[in-house]
């Protein structure tokens, strides 16, 4: 057994583990219509943040991206790398426009031109160690399942990594979600959890 492992003879002996806050839902809602989704005043009392989402953009296109901003920063401070697969096509793209994009990307969503109004993107976003206490570049990992139809190539999977740079922060206290190219979400839902 590794040194420091809190489980001894079947009993938890580490008080830090016993006192852990566990996972707690910080906020959840269904967005009937609206442009940005803003989680504000996120407490610094957890270890990690997890967001689950289901989203659809109003952009006149088959698909759009779910974008994210941290602490209200609207500058070119976000770097993202996408790996996606649809049918046999695997695509890898980095978003580094002029040193950084104006938002980070989380996953692909359906747009207004998708085959059905019931097509969405859904997925998760993980922000580990969002509160380091000292300045750092927050990074994230997002996974998404995307559908815009039933024909080949219209369903897919995304994995997106991102980092905020060069605007170092001490803690993530606000998360804003917005469609990359559209002006609003339709029938979308977002849930924020604090973990640990």
């Amino acid at each position: 057994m590794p040194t420091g492992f809190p489980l001894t003879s079947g009993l938890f002996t580490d008080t830090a583990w016993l006192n852990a806050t566990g996972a707690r839902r910080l906020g959840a809602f269904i967005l009937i219509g609206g442009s940005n989704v803003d989680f504000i005043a996120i407490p610094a009392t957890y270890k990690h943040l997890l967001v689950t989402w289901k989203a659809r953009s109003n952009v006149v296109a088959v698909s759009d991206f779910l974008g994210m901003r941290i602490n209200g920063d609207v500058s070119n401070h976000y770097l993202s790398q996408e790996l996606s697969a649809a049918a046999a096509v695997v695509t890898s793209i980095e978003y580094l426009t002029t040193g950084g994009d104006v938002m980070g990307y989380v996953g692909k969503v359906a747009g207004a031109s998708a085959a059905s109004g019931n097509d969405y993107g859904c997925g998760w976003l993980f922000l580990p160690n969002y509160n380091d206490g000292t300045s750092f570049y927050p990074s994230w990992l997002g996974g998404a399942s995307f559908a815009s139809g039933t024909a080949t190539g219209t369903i897919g999977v995304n994995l997106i990594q991102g980092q905020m740079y060069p605007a170092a922060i001490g803690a993530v206290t606000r998360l804003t979600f917005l469609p990359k190219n559209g002006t609003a979400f339709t029938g979308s839902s977002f849930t924020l959890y604090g973990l640990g």
Partner: protein
Amino acid sequence: MMAKRPALKDRPVVAEYDCSPDTPDAQRLTHRPMNDEEYDDLLARQKAHIDAVEAPQVHPLVAQIAAMSDEDKAALAAALTA
């Protein structure tokens, strides 16, 4: 010159969720109009999106050939006409 912004009541809505432990549950979710910064950001993103959609589309093969060195272009031309 920045176009005149619409009145607050005519702007897109932001769904804001206050996660603070001090906020009563019933008051956590509010819907407010975009502030000036958010509205200007939305307009800028829409302009960038429209510019990208309306930009002349260049076939990837044409772009690839245009990026070739003169030497490679000559070699390609020779290969095509051989």
